[in-house]
Structure formats: C-alpha cells, structure tokens
C-alpha cells in the first residue's frame, strides 16, 4: 500500500472543507481521458487508456468454446485484470491480492450485467459452440482510481473488437478465420467511483485522495442509464441519502464521459 504523509492528509482535508481538491478539480470533475485504439495487432481488439496519469492497456482475445450449461444459447464475456508490478512500486508478484481481485470483479460485473453486448448473438450452435470474449486488463501506471480507468479501457477494447468468422468442420475443432465482422455493441456501461473523505464525496479520486479516503462507492451505469452493478469499499459507512445522491451524480457525469468515447 502506498503511504501518505500526515501533512498531505491535512492539506487534502483542509481543502475539501473549502470545497476544493488537491489537484484543483471540482468534486464532480473527472480527470482528462485519452484513448488509443488498436495498438496491439495480435489482439482482436485493444485500447490503451489514460485517466489522468493512471494508465491501462486492455486487450480482447476471441475463442470458440462450450456455453455454460445454464445458458446454452449465450456467448461468454469474461473480464480479468492483473496488477503486474510495472504499474506501481507497491504491486508485488504472486497470487492476486484483495485489491487485484476486487478490481477484476468490479470491472467484470459492470460489463457482465450490462446489455451492451447481446450474448445470444454470440451463440454459434446452441449447447455446443459459442464465442468466448476474453477481456484482459493490464495496468501500466497506478495514479489512483484504477476501477474507472480499467472500465473505460475495457469498453473501448470491446468497441475495437473484430469478431473472426468461424469454420466448424464435421470432425475436429472449430477454427477462427481471417475474415472478421465488428463485435456488435450498444451504448457501453461505465463504472464511476466516488471517494468519501471525511464528509466530502468526490468523484475519480487520484492517488493521494485514494490513500486518505475512508470509503469508496463504485457505480456502473449501463448504456440505458440503469444501474448495472455497485461496490462499496472501506470501513466507513455511507448514509442512505449519500448513496442516492451518488447515483444521481453518476448519471449526470456518465453522459459527459460517453461523449469522449470512440
């Protein structure tokens, strides 16, 4: 875990009491977003995304596999992520820790429960062959709020994805062909993260704010403005009203972010 100096903590808290943030943003301002699509040619889709200085590379690989028994006519979309130590001196090798697993699962749920990708269209032959869309997120630099950065990178990589046509011989394994069609995708889900520091609630915490936050609330807003998933983190509580307010704020902010996506 990154450490934060006492003086920095005091400064962040003092500024928040005046309605200001340590990097000069307003409470509802998201850091600048930069997106680079299709950098990785061996991936079926890829996107490198900067949220401020936080930086995530997302790549999609397509496979043909068996559907899950309870959804025989639906394709599979799986998101996973890894905190490899290139992204921060505090990340370590070894089995994924709490932070890494939470990141994977929160981003995965945001995309999994969205209606942006119609899974039945990913079915090739019911009960036997479906497309598996495997989205992997690699963090290149941790400057705070990796959840939102990874969520944006994930949906951009999906948007960049070319679905290979397939050939299923009578006997033998299904084969992906060179010929592709774009992966159909509706308005994407986006995860927005609020940090609660003292009694202030701010969006998109940077690294320093993340280090002093008491609690965090991530909300995935789907393309149709419904809520796709949520995650509260931290030992400090939110009031009922605070949660309701966050959802309302998220709904407004997500519209601004959507205009910046490809």
């Amino acid at each position, binding site marked *: 875990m990154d450490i934060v100096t006492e003086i920095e903590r005091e400064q962040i808290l003092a500024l928040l009491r005046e309605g200001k943030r340590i990097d000069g943003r307003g409470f509802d301002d998201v850091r600048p977003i930069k997106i680079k699509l299709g*950098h*990785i*040619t*061996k*991936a*079926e889709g*890829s996107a490198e995304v900067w949220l401020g*200085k936080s*930086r995530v*590379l997302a*790549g*999609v*690989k397509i*496979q043909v596999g068996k559907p899950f028994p309870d959804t025989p006519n639906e394709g599979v979309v799986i998101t*996973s992520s*890894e905190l*490899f*130590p*290139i*992204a*921060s*001196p505090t990340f*370590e*090798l070894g089995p994924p820790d709490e932070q890494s697993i939470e990141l994977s699962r929160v981003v995965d749920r945001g995309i999994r429960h969205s209606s942006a990708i119609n899974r039945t269209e990913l079915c090739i032959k019911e009960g036997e062959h479906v497309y598996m869309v*495997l989205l*992997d997120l*690699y963090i*290149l*630099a*941790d*400057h705070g709020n990796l959840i939102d950065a990874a969520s944006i990178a994930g949906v951009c990589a999906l948007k960049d994805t070319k679905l*290979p046509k397939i050939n299923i011989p009578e006997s033998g394994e299904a*084969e*992906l062909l060179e010929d592709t069609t774009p992966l159909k995708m509706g308005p994407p889900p986006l995860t927005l993260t609020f940090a609660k520091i003292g009694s202030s609630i701010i969006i998109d915490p940077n690294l320093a704010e993340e280090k002093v936050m008491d609690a965090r609330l991530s909300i995935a807003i789907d393309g149709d403005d419904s809520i796709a998933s949520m995650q509260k983190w931290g030992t400090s509580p939110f009031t009922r009203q605070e949660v309701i307010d966050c959802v309302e704020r998220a709904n407004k902010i997500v519209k601004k972010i959507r205009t910046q996506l490809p």
Partner: protein
Amino acid sequence: MSDKKAEAEQPLIDAKGLRTDGRKLDELRPIHLEVGYLSRADGSAYIEHGKNKIVAAVYGPRELHPRHLAQSDRALLRVTYRMATFSVSDRKRPAPSRREHEISMVLRQALEPLLFLKMYPRAAIDVFIMVLEADGGSRCASATVASLALADAGIPMRGLVAGCAAGKIDGKIAVDLNDIEDKIGEADIPLAMSPDRGEITLLQMDGKLTAAEFAQALSMAENGIHRIQEMQKTVLLEKYAQIRETIGDEPDVSPEDEVFEEEPAKEPAEEPEKPKKRAKRIKTEAKETKPKPTKKSTRSKTMEAQAKK
C-alpha cells in the same frame, strides 16, 4: 487461428532473395526505443522491434522482501519476464508458463554481469518485463529494453546489453528472425551481448546448423547487436539532452566532465571494476560513434519515427 499447413509450404525467401517482410538476409526489422515510458517505475523503457512491443520497469536498489533472501555482500537481481494474454495469436493463459520462467532466468543472467551488485548489499533490484505483443525474438528485444530501463533508473552499469537473434531459413543464414521465420525456419540463435566489452551474456540455440553456419550466424547477430547498441545510446543521450534543455538557465553540469569525476570516491574499495570511469568512456564513445553511418536503414527509420513525435 492461422493455417499451419499453408505456413509450412510458404517460402521464407523469395526469388529476389527477400524475406517474408521484404528484408534482406542481413537486415534488421525497424526498431523504436523510448526511455522513461512508465510514470511510476524508478526506470523504464519501451521497445518496438518489428511487431514486438515490450515494456520494462526497474525498481531499486530497494529494500528486499522477503528478507530471508537478502545476501549480506550483494544486491539480489530479480528479473521477471511475462507475456500479456493477448500478445500472441492464441490467447496465452494468465499464469506464468515454464517458458516464461526460463526466459526470466536467462535474462537475469544476461543482465547481471553488467551490474555492480556488491555496491548494494542486502538490497533488491527488480526488473519486470511485460511483452504486450510478441513477434519472434522477444527475449532478445527484452534484453535490449531491460538494459535501457536499468540505465534509465540511474543504476551504474559496466555497459549496456543488447539482444538480436540470427538463424537459418530456407537454407540461408539470416539475422533477426521474425515470428514465422522463428516458427518454421531451420534454426534460431537468440543472442545478447555487451558489445563494448565483447561479452556474450545470453546464448541459446535450437534447430540444426553446421559449425560454419553457426559461426556465420553468430557474427551476423553480433553485427545486429552493434547497430542496436548505437540506437540505445542515442535514445539515452537524447533523454538527457532534453532534461538539460528543460532545466534551462540553471548552471549546467555536463555529464562528461563533472558528474563522473566527483563520484569514484564513494565507491566501495573491494569493487574490482571502476564503474564511473567506464560509464564515462561509454558516453564519450557514443558521441564519437554517433555520426558513424550504419549499413542498413533501420537506424534512420527509427530516428525518423522519433522526429515525427
């Protein structure tokens, strides 16, 4: 994904003597290098070598965890080579493979002779290499980029290591094999060297070669390494030229005449080599050799690419 049968029948050298990507036998793929690529690492670098895209991060010398690994007389160098799941045609499983463990080991041994580990007893120097896209020769490109990242971290080194492979395709010896040449060619020799010192620090080989062919391949790879080394020096010098410009009016200390003269006093007495003097020699040499025209266009291509940025 790709049709393996069709690949096997495809000639690797055409009637004009050109390879699948249009190169001559002794031509390197285009190479692009960057230093300071990652914002949170102590030192970092990025390489595009053909379609290989590889990033390296260095941390340290820093406190070593777990402590029982600490060595009382020297730092521990740890090198980890990993591939992104989407870096290859068929998705790689996320867990590190036997291949990745082996390459981590040979890369550690390729880099270790260049470092003065006895200067940092009980500490760790960690090198993390992530292959974002692989295109044949990724361990060689990893040696090149890891060595740059170590230099970017400001860790004293005896010299830089650069990597380049050579091998045999369609009966002929060729340098810097690409993905398909590596897969269906007759032989492949990954090589990493510190060319200033004439030292081979990484050598592997698989395939079938006569002793004469091996000797020819080795000198071709060495020639490639010399060219890559010049690019490494250029990109490092460029970074420090930029820093000097940014600092602007502050009294400027030229790295050639001041910095390296001051420091040898701090060296531990038992150190067999004189690191700073060597560093100085390399810098001077780099300046002298800078205008040296290289045989191939690779270098100028890279420089053009950098100029565009």
